[in-house]
């Protein structure tokens, strides 16, 4: 064979093959990364989407006066003394009566029949009655949470086979609920309570909600926004526009670069030692959480703000100075407004980062079990001083509980968190697209 460019010799073939291989590695790497993202998202979505559905059982509950208000005078104080245990008994009777009326028979004991309702159900009825004492003596039709296992059955988490091995439910209970469902008493519908209700104890995953966590996260975002944005912008303006090149500003610059890479848990230790132990602010309060997250996001905001300031051309400053503005006026009247979209974008991304941060919040006590909605201001606790929890911490909290239904709740909480993050990032991208200026 003659040597020609048209004939590929062995060495060229080898080199071409290695070229192809190399390209393949690159493509494979991208494929792996994208696959990881897809797996991550599908795993969270499949585990969590069902948290937005909840199974309810409708029951006609007779509210006998002799059990719920013995005095018969509808005195709120006396009625409040009747505990959920009493209401649970009333509910059990109502449920049994309903089964009898529907002609459903079961081999289960009465106690086990009552277990198809959530432990939260009695509290629901009780608060309904306390809110409206006139209901006593009447029969009300009320939608009540089904217990976690029954709910799991309608979501495919619990099957007849797994129920047989389960101490908390039984195949008979599931059949019983199916019979109720055939007669239209059981409904699975969108779970608003998941987004608004507070956390519930580990006995009743079906009642656990994100209300307190969302509120706590919101408060913290307020604190972060109102502290990190002004401080971050002021610091960047100084460093970018005014700072002389000397050792002090060098130290600040190196510092900011390093702070951006300090592990987040270290900020938690800082918060615990300085804000809680030294300044004696309230543990697990959104104020402390917000302060810690502020310190954590400051470097991010400073870095992006400085980039935004840098991208404003010097001619703008020169023009302002030329018509008699002071240096300060040129910055605040001209440079800063032009850099605003970039600054806002950076701030939103910093906020998004802060919203998802968990580790430092664990150390400042945000893992506490909180059922009360925190008020923004109370005279005792001060501004944002009431105990609260936060979205990512709530996720962590739920992963630590034994009942598998909490895995669904945790994944659902993550979906909620991701929706918030997506929304924030979408705003940031929109701002960047809409207002970005090329000089």
């Amino acid at each position, binding site marked *: 064979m003659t040597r020609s460019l048209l004939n590929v010799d062995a060495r060229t073939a080898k*080199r071409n093959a*290695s*070229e192809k*291989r*190399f*390209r393949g*590695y*690159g493509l494979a*790497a*991208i494929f*792996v*990364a*994208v696959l*990881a*993202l897809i*797996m*991550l998202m599908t*795993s*969270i979505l499949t*585990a969590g989407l069902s948290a937005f559905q909840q199974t309810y059982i409708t029951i006609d509950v007779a509210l006998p006066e002799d059990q719920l208000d013995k005095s018969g005078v509808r005195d709120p104080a006396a009625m409040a003394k009747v505990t959920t245990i009493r209401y649970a008994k009333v509910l059990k009777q109502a449920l049994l009566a309903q089964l009898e009326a529907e002609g459903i028979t079961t081999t289960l004991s009465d106690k086990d029949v009552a277990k198809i309702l959530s432990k939260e159900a009695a509290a629901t009825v009780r608060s309904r009655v306390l809110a409206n004492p006139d209901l006593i003596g009447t029969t009300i039709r009320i939608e009540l949470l089904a217990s976690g296992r029954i709910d799991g059955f309608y979501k495919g988490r619990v099957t007849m086979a797994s129920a047989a091995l389960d101490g908390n439910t039984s195949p008979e209970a599931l059949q019983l609920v199916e019979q109720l469902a055939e007669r239209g008493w059981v409904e699975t519908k969108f779970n608003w309570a998941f987004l608004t209700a507070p956390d519930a104890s580990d006995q009743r995953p079906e009642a656990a909600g994100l209300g307190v966590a969302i509120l706590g996260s919101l408060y913290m975002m307020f604190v972060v926004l109102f502290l990190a944005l*002004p*401080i971050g912008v*002021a*610091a960047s*303006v*100084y*460093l970018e526009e*005014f700072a002389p090149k000397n050792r002090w500003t060098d130290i*600040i610059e190196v510092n900011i*670069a*390093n*702070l951006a*890479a*300090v*592990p987040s*848990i*270290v*900020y*938690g*230790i*800082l918060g*615990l*030692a300085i804000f809680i*132990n030294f*300044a004696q602010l309230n543990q697990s309060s959104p104020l402390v959480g917000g302060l810690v997250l502020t*310190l954590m996001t*400051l*470097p991010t905001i400073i870095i992006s703000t400085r980039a935004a300031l840098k991208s404003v051309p010097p001619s703008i400053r020169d023009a302002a100075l030329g018509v008699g503005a002071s*240096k300060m006026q040129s910055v605040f009247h001209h440079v800063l407004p032009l850099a605003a979209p970039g600054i806002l974008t950076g701030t939103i991304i910093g906020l*998004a980062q802060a919203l*998802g*941060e*968990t*580790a430092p919040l*664990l*150390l400042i006590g945000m893992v506490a079990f909180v059922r009360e909605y925190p008020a923004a201001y109370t005279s005792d606790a001060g501004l944002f001083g009431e105990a609260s929890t936060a979205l*990512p911490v709530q996720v*962590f909290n739920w*992963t630590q509980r034994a009942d598998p239904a909490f895995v669904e709740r945790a994944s659902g909480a*993550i979906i909620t968190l991701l929706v918030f993050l997506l929304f924030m990032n979408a705003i940031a991208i929109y701002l960047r697209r809409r207002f970005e200026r090329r000089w």
Partner: protein
Amino acid sequence: MSLTLAIFVICTIAITGWVSALIRVRKLQHLQAARLAALPKQYAVNAVLSGFIPGISVILGSALALRFSGAAPSGFGAFCAVAVAALGTVVALARITPDFRARVHVESWIKTLLIIASSIAILTTVGIVLSMVFESVNFFQQYGWTGFFFSAEWSPNFRGNSALGILPLLWGTLYISFIALLFAVPVGLFAAIYLSEYASHRMRAWAKPVIEILAGVPTIVYGLFALITVGPLLRDYFAAPMGLGQSASSVMTAGLVMGIMLIPFVSSLSDDIINAVPQAMRDGSYGLGATQSETIRQVVLPAALPGIVGAILLAASRAIGETMIVVLGAGAAARLSLNPFEAMTTVTVKIVSQLTGDTDFAAPETLVAFALGLTLFVITLGLNVFALYIVRKYREQYE
């Protein structure tokens, strides 16, 4: 008078200062028909800031003094703050004359504020170091440093007699970080190479943002992913059949998931660095007849190597300081073992477990968390400084 009340009073003084400054300026303009050296607004702002800034600083100072001295709040500090604020406002108002250059004064106040804001970065670092050093010193007074740094046993016991050796924790941390890097560096690096050298414009436009989504996902999400998906998967398909362990939380689980988290970190940093290699070097290589992959391997990568090493070091520091993934994915047992399918624990996990729940800040079992934190801080700081140094030095070469 409480400090909160003082803040309200100072705000009132500031508003009064603003209004009366404007009134005085108006009068000056009417009575003397004088040309003022500054806009009326500048006089007013000067009056506000002259009272407000000193007043608030006194409040902060007295709050700190109270905290350090431990004295009961007496109202003296609040009184001083209000007095200082009032004095400052009055002086500023008295200085309103046609010749007074209010703008200059306002701007020096604002500059003071800017300087204070930028010093917060320094204060944060000082706060971090101080908060950990103080408690660490407390810890080392109760527990020997040799026992902490060189003991291979970790078994805290709140009744006393704990063994608090950092070695098993460090081993877990480094092992998990190593596995994470083993996964993230090749994937991230090859992704960066493909995106910057081979990919078409269109592919780059979608692949780069998609990979960067991974960087925006909070770590708790990765933690949950490790807990509910990766852990059971590895246990059922690898660890259990191979007889290596029965635990879903393992070094491998945490390492792999952390590796996924680090991919965008490695790839976007490497991407920047590879793009910074001048095109002339590639052209020179092509001119000598090298294929594209030969150019990348023998010209581009060696030129970008210092930067890539810096990126890897930054990724390593991120891996070492990562908390949620290991809390949910790695387990809690302190163990020195080579088996990657066994549960091990890390420095960060132990910081969390020692500082959550009931804590007693006199016991070494709680204080050890600060010593762990300090160790972690020193290690990551060292890595960061070294990495930033390398990256900076490299950048100067080609720009």
